[in-house]
């Protein structure tokens, strides 16, 4: 099994840690404490890397694996940080039949990352998503708040260049 510890260095601050510990203190000792703690932690850090899960395991006195298995079960939790630019490609039915699968594959290839991952420089993150409500524009991709519709694979280089890809 490929080790899933992200290569992007952890940049957590002391303030974030204090906030996390406060959140843990609220739930510690209750049964079912783990999921609300993870939700709080993801709010604080944006994602749940090794360092954060370790702090949670230590504080709740459960093993790392007990934390990790819950994190990887629920789609709401992420092991990877958000990037400076977050790319979401719609793989919903309408977009998919219009070829968004190819666009997604091409982006994985260009960025060298897989679904839910972030580039090592922390710049781009790629996610597949389900319907952004713009089926008329299929296939659709968003980068942060920018929406790109009626996309073709050929346009990708030009779009990525606007966000500094390849520089």
């Amino acid at each position: 099994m490929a080790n899933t510890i992200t290569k992007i260095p952890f940049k957590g601050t002391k303030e974030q840690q204090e906030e996390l510990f406060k959140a843990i203190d609220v739930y510690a000792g209750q049964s079912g404490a783990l999921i609300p703690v993870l939700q709080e932690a993801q709010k604080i850090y944006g994602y749940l890397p090794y360092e954060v899960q370790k702090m949670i395991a230590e504080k709740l006195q459960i093993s790392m694996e007990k934390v990790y298995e819950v994190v990887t079960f629920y789609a709401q939790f992420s092991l990877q940080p958000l990037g400076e630019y977050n790319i979401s490609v719609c793989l919903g039915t309408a977009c998919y039949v219009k070829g968004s699968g190819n666009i997604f594959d091409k982006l994985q290839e260009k960025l060298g990352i897989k679904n839910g991952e972030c580039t090592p420089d922390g710049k781009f993150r790629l996610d597949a998503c389900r319907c952004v409500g713009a089926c008329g524009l299929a296939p659709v991709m968003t980068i942060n708040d920018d929406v790109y519709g009626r996309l073709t694979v050929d346009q990708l280089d030009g779009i990525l260049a606007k966000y500094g890809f390849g520089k």
Partner: protein
Amino acid sequence: MDTLNIKINGRDYTVPTGLTVLEACRYAGVEIPTLCYLKDINEIGACRLCLTEVKGARGMVAACVYPVDRDGMEIVTNSTKIQEARKTNLKLLLSNHDKKCLSCVRSGRCELQKLCNDYGVDTVDAYKGAMNQYEIDDSAPHMIRDNNKCILCRRCVAVCEKNQSVAVLGANERGFNTHIGCAFDQDLWEVPCVACGQCTAVCPTGALYERDETDKVWAALEDPTKHVVVNPAPSIRATLGECFGMPIGTNVKGKLVAALHRLGFDGVYDTDVGADLTILEEANEFIERVQNGGKLPIITSCSPGWIKFCEHNFPDFLDNLSTCKSPQQMFGAVVKTWYAEKNGLDPKDIVVVSIMPCTAKKFERSRDGQSAAGVPDVDVALTTRELARMIERAGIDFVNLADEEFDAPLGITTGAAAIFGATGGVMEAALRTAVETLTGKELESVDFKEVRGTQGIKEATYNVAGLEVKAAVASGLANARELLNRIRRGEANYHIVEIMACPGGCVNGGGQPIQPANVRNFTDLKAIRAKALYEEDANLPLRKSHDSPVIKVLYDEYFGKPGSHKAHEVLHTHYQPRETYGKDR
């Protein structure tokens, strides 16, 4: 006792209340197949092999979790409808299973294979589709994880978490991607696994198994430049027979020795010598700590899974651990020093093979501080299962072997050593020697029955020469954690504590013969196997370690007295704190 009158397959039965359908059927002598069910620790109704029909219930029910809760309940366990459902479930399991049965370590002893045979599921490709491909995890010195053979029953997860409180194995991700793994899908040896091997003993398939080192032994036995000695641990004689179809709890000491002779070892000795020696050193260490205000409680150090667990989870107790090497390591150290000198052998040319109930022994032998003569004390640690494989491959008719005796000079042992293989045994053996040393009088009875039995935590107090000696015994690491937490919180205090990593001690070790869940769930393996050891103890002429003539020779000729400088050099070791949560190295 409250009872219920129920029908199983059309016949009337009266069963106690509070049972599941599975238990009630078992009570009535009707077996229902299972794959995921482990009594008390994994009752999750996941594998759907125990499907049965209960009149009035919606659809088929999982017998392992469905309660028998009313008079007149009608249960059907084997209709063709049920059989078809079970067949379908087996085919679905096979559709994502590496079916290389021919080369599988568990072929012939695989619970999935047996059920496929029983149900005539030979169309292995009934459902074609995507299959998961997993890398094999061979990072650990003691075992291999092959998720391609895993059926996600979670029995390993249950023993690791519930019995051992180690919890390094779990179910990662979800749906088709669900797989058993460690945190962040790190290798097993990067996380705080303690090498106890309990997971390998409960895996129904070939997904988890001991690292096979028999090839090293075959090679050594053929090498004319090597002097190869073997020593089986106390509990092996109580379990090896199971690999050859003998009843659980049969003591096969004589056949074991005969088989080892036939495999061609240059010396067939007894790890029990190492156990007797451990007692002399440990009892002395205990008495010294009591008399000189040393760190108490002293905690036994024979179980390498426990030692690694302590290093990870209770680093504040490392000074409590006895510095004594385990019997395996003491035995190896004596062979590479005293025995080598006596026989004019270069320790480099001696190969010490130990036969252990334990996968953690494979890890222990490679630890720092386990090389008294500058070379490892022990060269190969085989599990009971690996030895059985060697005996089978050598074509030895084990069941019909005539009994033979261990070789001199390391073959005479005591009853105190025999009981090392069961929880409470090391404590009892140590007390036999410590009490006689402290009082200077011979014990009227050598039986310390309060520390016997398979309970997870046992306590006893003995009045020894005016001193109240408080003793505690724990087996199973979840129980060890509980006991140590009590001591940490100041709720309990003891002078001496024995801990064995596996529930019930070495007789139930991770390297012991595999018993399928339908046996394991309804048989107290640890109690029946332990009984064989206590019987051996009762029948031996010598029952106290300090009465052993071999031990007397070792101290007269070599070590001087227990705790001597020489003894410390050869027979003692040290420990290191390890990460509790994160990466081990």
